[in-house]
């Protein structure tokens, strides 16, 4: 597809256009989808490194030093840092930039903070879209930072090509590592703040976990010790990421896994459209409000209400 004017500006390295397009993507604007369509063929090649872990383990500080490492190696780096939105006010304080020390005029870095905005599933799509835009913009590597409770936040799984999970010493005993979720998705484990006592123990537990795991693409998760205050282990971290990237490439990437991921994305987009259809066909109709009134008066139960609404929707299609 021929690139339109906005896509052209992205390809030419216009930072303002990129920044605005990411906003449009977050808002789910149709114009942004058009640009994504045009840029899509130029995406999917750059390593996308997910950096996840609980609050306060040092993810932003690690990213700061990774940026420096990558810039020294001549790589251009895009960063998306996701922080939670308040479920009460919808607002957010996005504070990941305070750890970043860089030359503000360096065109080889683009750092964007994103709030989770509380929409289930929607975050992964806007993050994925923003990653694609950064790649089309010419970034050689994209880093995506997300807060993980350690047990549930695994959205990054489908977006990243290498998943780094960051912990610190004394985060919990080895039973924590047995729980389902974040620990299952890691390709590389980082024990940050390794200058603190207990780091070796944490690394040992994770290594044990990693050896017991069923290898994906023939890869056994690595465990790396880092300290951002002592500037240790960043090179090792990047080597582990690179090794994982080449292991996946050599293995051709498990095509089944890639297919499942692609399917999940399209299903997500499809669900968005279904939701929109629901909105337009049903929820804006006065009959919907009347149905809710009857539900409130207990004239109808929620199961019957949903059945009736569904029948109505099918009738209208």
């Amino acid at each position, binding site marked *: 597809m021929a690139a339109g004017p906005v896509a052209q500006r992205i390809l030419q390295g216009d930072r303002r256009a990129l920044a605005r397009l990411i906003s449009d993507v977050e808002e789910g604007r149709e114009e942004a989808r058009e640009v994504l369509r045009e840029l899509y063929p130029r995406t999917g090649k750059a390593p996308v490194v997910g950096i996840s872990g609980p609050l306060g383990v040092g993810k932003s500080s690690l990213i700061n030093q990774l940026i420096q490492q990558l810039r020294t190696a001549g790589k251009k780096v895009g960063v998306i840092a996701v922080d939670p939105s*308040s479920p009460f006010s*919808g607002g957010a304080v996005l504070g990941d930039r305070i750890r970043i020390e860089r030359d503000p005029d360096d065109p080889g870095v683009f750092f964007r903070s994103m709030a989770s905005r509380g929409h289930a599933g929607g975050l992964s799509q806007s993050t994925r879209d923003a990653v694609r835009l950064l790649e089309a913009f010419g970034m050689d590597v994209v880093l995506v930072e997300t807060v993980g409770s350690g047990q549930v936040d695994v959205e990054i799984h489908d977006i990243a090509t290498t998943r780094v999970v960051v912990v610190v010493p004394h985060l919990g005993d080895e039973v924590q590592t047995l729980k389902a979720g974040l620990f299952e998705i890691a390709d590389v484990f980082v024990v940050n703040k390794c200058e603190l006592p207990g780091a070796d123990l944490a690394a040992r537990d994770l290594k044990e976990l990693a050896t017991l795991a069923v290898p994906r693409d023939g890869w056994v998760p690595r465990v790396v010790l880092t300290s951002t205050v002592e500037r240790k282990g960043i090179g090792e971290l990047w080597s582990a990421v690179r090794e994982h990237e080449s292991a996946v490439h050599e293995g051709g990437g498990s095509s089944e896994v890639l297919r499942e991921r692609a399917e999940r994305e399209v299903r997500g987009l499809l669900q968005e459209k279904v939701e929109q259809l629901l909105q337009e066909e049903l929820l804006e109709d006065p009959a919907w409000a009347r149905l809710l009134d009857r539900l409130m008066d207990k004239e109808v139960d929620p199961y019957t209400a949903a059945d009736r609404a569904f029948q109505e929707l099918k009738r209208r299609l």
Partner: protein
Amino acid sequence: MPEGKGRKSPGAKVRPIRVLIAKPGLDGHDRGAKVVARALRDAGMEVIYAGLRQTPEDIVAAAMEEDVDIIGLSILSGAHNVLVPRVLELLKERRAIDVQVFAGGIIPDEDAARLRKLGVKAIFGPGASLETIIQTARDLAAKRVARV
């Protein structure tokens, strides 16, 4: 209800107001900036907190990347007559004058008048209420020039 520029409905997500809060220069008194950041968050805005010791170049680069509607500068060092005009100048250079700027801190009246003339949209001194700051941020975001 999340604060935004319009009504929220599925399919057409509303963008919350985005504000960059930064402290240019060398003073380390960031309590005020943090209180303002939190108040704007509670008013439903997305606050990018850039923190201490930022150069005007850092601030403008961050504002561009984050596509903010507003930059809020907190200065208690007395260097506002140098730092604030520099931020405005950089915004002009990068053709980003649609980004609205407000400032807070210890800024004498005569300096405030001069900074307003240069393009600062609001200046908050000691005792400014959070309510006023929130309302000003909302008004400024509404004024941000339509996208090109």
